[in-house]
């Protein structure tokens, strides 16, 4: 019976190691196709050209075009998610009654569970027409709508993680400040948030990471026109939207155009990884320096 126990353990270990294979698989395929791509298109072109036209006759491969779009939508999304998320976290952590928290927290979770394609619908067919009333010059596809809706989608993540960070601040710190006659606002802004700073930054950066990788909202509402700009009112194309565009088209597999999605994917992966690691490091920093 001893070998049967060992066999069972072996199978379970194999299942657990699939996670390692998945990561290796991701890195492998991204590198494999990207290297083939960079044999034809030197990296320097990829990084410095200012146009992105791989599907046209005259091909340009400036990743910065797609990158600028991703950057723009991410910044707008975080401009929404950061303040709202942090403030919501403060409310839940410092002001809300137990009953209020029990009702509001699940509601925020629902917000996080809505499929992104539904958010995309909302951005294109509700938010954009609404913005058009306020900003007539805005076009049907733009970064602003997509960014705002993305921000709402990420808000629960930022709120939840920031709340954990605030919760981790020891009660003794708060009580010392209250005992000096400080109001909640003063305690929160003066003592609690600074103490939870690393954890809050970690939640922000995780939010950024999610915004970077978001696909459907931008594919539906931000447009599929690669354009190097920081204007939030015109159509653009993010890195993720480009991959979708190619996947929907008739690009023959194995061609140079096909390989571009992997080069873009690799760029996305590297940036995303960097932010994830940064976020993890910041979160662990708060844990370590907890008083």
């Amino acid at each position: 019976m001893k070998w049967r126990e060992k066999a069972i353990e072996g199978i379970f270990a194999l299942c657990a190691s699939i996670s390692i294979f998945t990561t290796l698989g991701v890195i492998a395929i991204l590198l494999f196709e990207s290297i083939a791509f960079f044999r034809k298109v030197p990296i320097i072109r990829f990084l410095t050209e200012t146009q992105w036209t791989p599907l046209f006759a005259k091909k340009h491969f400036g990743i910065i075009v797609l990158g600028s779009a991703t950057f723009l939508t991410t910044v707008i999304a975080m401009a929404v998610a950061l303040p709202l998320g942090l403030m919501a976290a403060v409310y839940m952590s410092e002001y809300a009654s137990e009953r209020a928290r029990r009702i509001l927290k699940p509601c925020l979770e629902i917000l996080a569970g809505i499929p992104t394609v539904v958010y995309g619908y909302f951005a294109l067919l509700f938010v954009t027409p609404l913005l058009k009333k306020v900003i007539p010059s805005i076009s049907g596809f733009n970064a602003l709508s997509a960014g705002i809706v993305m921000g709402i989608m990420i808000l629960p993540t930022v709120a939840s993680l920031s709340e954990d960070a605030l919760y981790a601040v020891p009660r003794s710190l708060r009580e010392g400040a209250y005992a000096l006659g400080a109001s909640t606002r003063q305690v929160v802004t003066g003592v609690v948030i600074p103490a939870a700073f690393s954890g809050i930054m970690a939640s922000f950066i995780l939010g950024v990471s999610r915004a970077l990788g978001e696909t459907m909202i931008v594919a539906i509402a931000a447009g599929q026109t690669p354009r190097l700009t920081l204007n939030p009112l015109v159509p653009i194309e993010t890195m993720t939207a480009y991959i979708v565009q190619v996947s929907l088209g008739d690009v023959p597999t194995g061609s140079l155009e096909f390989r571009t999605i992997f080069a873009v994917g690799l760029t996305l992966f590297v940036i995303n990884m960097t932010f994830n690691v940064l976020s993890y490091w910041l979160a662990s920093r708060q844990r370590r320096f907890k008083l």
Partner: protein
Amino acid sequence: MKERWLERLFKALTFISTIIGLLVLVILLIDVLKDGLPRLSWKFITSFPSRNPDEAGILPALVGSAMLLILTALFAFPIGVAAGIYLEEYASDNLFTRLIEINIANLAGIPSIIYGLLGLEIFVRALRGITGGRSIFSGALTMSLLVLPIIIVSSREAIRAVPRSIREAGYALGATKWQVVRDQILPVAMPGILTGTILALSRAIGETAPLITIGALAYIAFLPPLSLKALQSPFTVLPIQIFNWVSRPQEAFHANAAAAIIVLLVLLLSMNAAAIYLRNRFQVRFE
């Protein structure tokens, strides 16, 4: 006093921030219901897509989503639970275990479209012979990889919640590790594991990007055959159908998209409700 006003303002701001998200949610739901409810009908649910928006329906998308869900569950559940059991009951604190745990945490943070690229290269292209290329089989394998980290994490939590005393009692009677896991730990942990799995699958049902990337088509006018061959057939899913209709300029298609969204949200709601019901009904509570 100035501070009194600042305090009131601050508190109000924090409250508004919390409410804004909910407000947007409510507006979104009202908007979708307004646009989609008129279009929702039994005919809509049972028709195929069509160039004519009034005749188009979601049947292949619905069937595709259902099949994808079942297949993904079939792959991801056993592997995820097995991995969870290994990490909680068998693994010791060595490099291998640490590596696995880092990877699982990592994978949860990768954009879903990257999973699509992975599925495209490995399942659609490299393993074309087995999977049939851009098939529901490839889709299920890709989605399994996507939800695996979630299932592993919730399995671990459910297993960890089983009190140590149960394990000790089992071992003290002369049982092997697998006997204790199979007969004492898993039955107690199963409601928690199932709840986590259903929640993971409810995320999968709303995923669009990775499936587009592996080539789930946007216009499917047939249903997969009722045989094992179905695994290798092309397919579409509800979110992709929604995406397709939203991307058309005609308003009539937008109404279709809204109606399809309602169906998707109802499915999601049902799955989450089922998960919560399961957990409340079957969870073993220890004094």
